[in-house]
């Protein structure tokens, strides 16, 4: 494979889903923080809650659509984030080499990774489980707080809060690293492709085992 070639990392369906996540989860995170601390006036808090509810509906529609329209991608994603090996422990031992790179300007050996590195896999697990819990608890808190067992609604409130905090914190890290890995950022936001060389370095297992040249693709 030529060195100046680009390879497709994020297909259109994934990029579309990601756009919807940006449009729904970012407002959800911001309004969620406001709803927790309640710093605004009655009218402003009301508007905040309305935005939160509307964004929640958008998030639910985006997730449901992706699940049904790109089921193969969902299965692949789940398979990838839950495939754990010793390499993941080694990756976490050096935190993917990022602190050394960012703080010490030093490059340390990092175990070879698949399409997602161990940190991204952990983020994926949290997004999958935390996001599902957020959506489920959000609908209960919005539509049924009066009609469900009181203790259950209270539990849903706690689940919503904890999952919201965890995912918002992850979001901050995700945004930082997303911009730091600018080629991947461009791929997700624009054309879906990353340079072959970068993929070979960052996701060597993926490139070696899964990526095939278009010329070899018989489909």
């Amino acid at each position, binding site marked *: 494979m030529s060195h100046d070639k680009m390879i497709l990392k994020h297909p259109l369906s994934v990029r579309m889903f990601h756009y919807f996540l940006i449009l729904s989860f970012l407002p959800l995170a911001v309004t969620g923080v406001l709803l927790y601390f*309640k710093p605004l006036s*009655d009218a402003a808090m009301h508007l905040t*809650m309305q935005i*939160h509810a509307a964004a929640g509906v958008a998030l639910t529609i985006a997730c449901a659509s992706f699940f049904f329209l790109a089921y193969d991608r969902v299965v692949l994603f789940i398979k990838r984030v839950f495939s754990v090996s010793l390499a993941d422990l080694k990756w976490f031992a050096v935190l993917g080499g990022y602190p050394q790179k960012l703080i010490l300007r030093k490059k340390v050996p990092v175990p070879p990774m698949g399409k997602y590195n161990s940190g991204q896999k952990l983020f994926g697990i949290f997004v999958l489980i935390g996001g599902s819990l957020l959506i489920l608890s959000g609908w209960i808190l919005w539509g049924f*707080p009066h*009609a*469900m067992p*009181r203790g259950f609604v*209270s539990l849903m409130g706690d689940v919503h809060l904890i999952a919201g905090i965890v995912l918002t914190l992850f979001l901050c890290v995700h945004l930082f690293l997303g911009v730091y890995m600018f080629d991947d950022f461009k791929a997700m936001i624009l054309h879906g492709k990353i340079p072959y060389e970068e993929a070979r370095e960052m996701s060597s297992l993926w490139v070696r085992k899964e990526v095939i040249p278009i010329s070899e693709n018989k489909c």
Partner: protein
Amino acid sequence: MNAVAKTYQKGEIPGLIAIRASACKGCDACQRYCPTGAITGSFGATHGIDVDLCLSCGQCLISCPFDAVYETDDAVDQVIANLRDKSVSVVGIIAPAVRVAIGEEFGMKTGSLVTGKLYGSMKKAGFEILDNNFAADLTIMEEGSELISRARHAVFGEKSAHGEPIGPLPQLTSCCPAWVRYVETQCPALIPHLSSAKSPQQMAGTVAKTYGTKVWNKPASQIFTVGIMPCTAKKFEASRPEFTSAYEFNKKQNRETGPAYPDVDVVLTTRDLARLFKKMKIDLAKEADYSPDILFAEYSGAGTIFGNTGGVMEAAVRTAYAVLTGEELANVEFKPVRGLKGVKSASVTLKDAKYGKDVTINLAVVHDMARNIKPIVDDVLAGKSPYHFIEVMNCPAGCINGGGQPIDKSGSSWVEAIRPLFAWK
């Protein structure tokens, strides 16, 4: 609490129910249960309570999933202090719904009937016992007789025995203090329709401080009456300034020269009583059954069923049957008014032995006021109501699910089918 509460008489407790801003999530669950729209604050914003609209029913309190709603009145320590004062007889007036709920606070199965253990625990704490079922029997005799009087007045033009005016039909029950406050603040034109009979709690307080002075051999000023109720609004009711009947009576009898006292001094909810027992190291679940040998613990089945929606109506029908026909009802169960349907109605035809004619009485039973009362009230106000007697209880299912009952985390007060109500406004 509002700085200026406009819908309260002097002495009444305003702002009995309040919302802790730090715990409120603005989810609007409480608003679904409020019969008067007293909950303020938009969806998402911290909620508050409009004291002037609030009925003190406590449905928001027992329904808030986040424990943000609380009571501002707590008489537990005051009652304990009186129990320790040997010169005072502390009379516990136990409502029917308390005995089937308080066991939950001591780890017993939900719905356990613990009358004997409750009596035993109260005796151990130092209470004299006046079962409110006894007073409920008094109430129903008054309320049933009043219904007959109103019906005979409407049908046969009969005048009252003492010349006082007779109220219009439909007669509305008056034992639910939240309902009475609803009428007074939302539709005062209906006040003449309310039964003039006091609630069982207030009758019990009056009896305790009049007849009870002979039973306990104490002046009324040394009798401290404690309503033990499933209801937060009963605290408000006891604080109403007009409820000093015992004092007025005793004064007329020249048995009273001191300052005025209320018929019921304080009210404890079921939750409060459980807390009192725990403070006094009394474990109700381990107490032996006790049966007090006193007239005030005698009662009929009519008083017992007061705590359920339809209970007052069923008891009233039994009484009306006996008074009108001069015979005892063979089957005392009147099933059309039982169950959790929002508005239940029935007709009973009774032979009025005095006039030798059949009288048909149309009855309605309403509970869960937040959802069911408006059309009933509108019909009565418009003069279109088909009913002659309407029982109203504020809380879903009646006093059994009152705002002062133990809070069951595995349930909610919602008695309709589960349906979503997505808040927006």
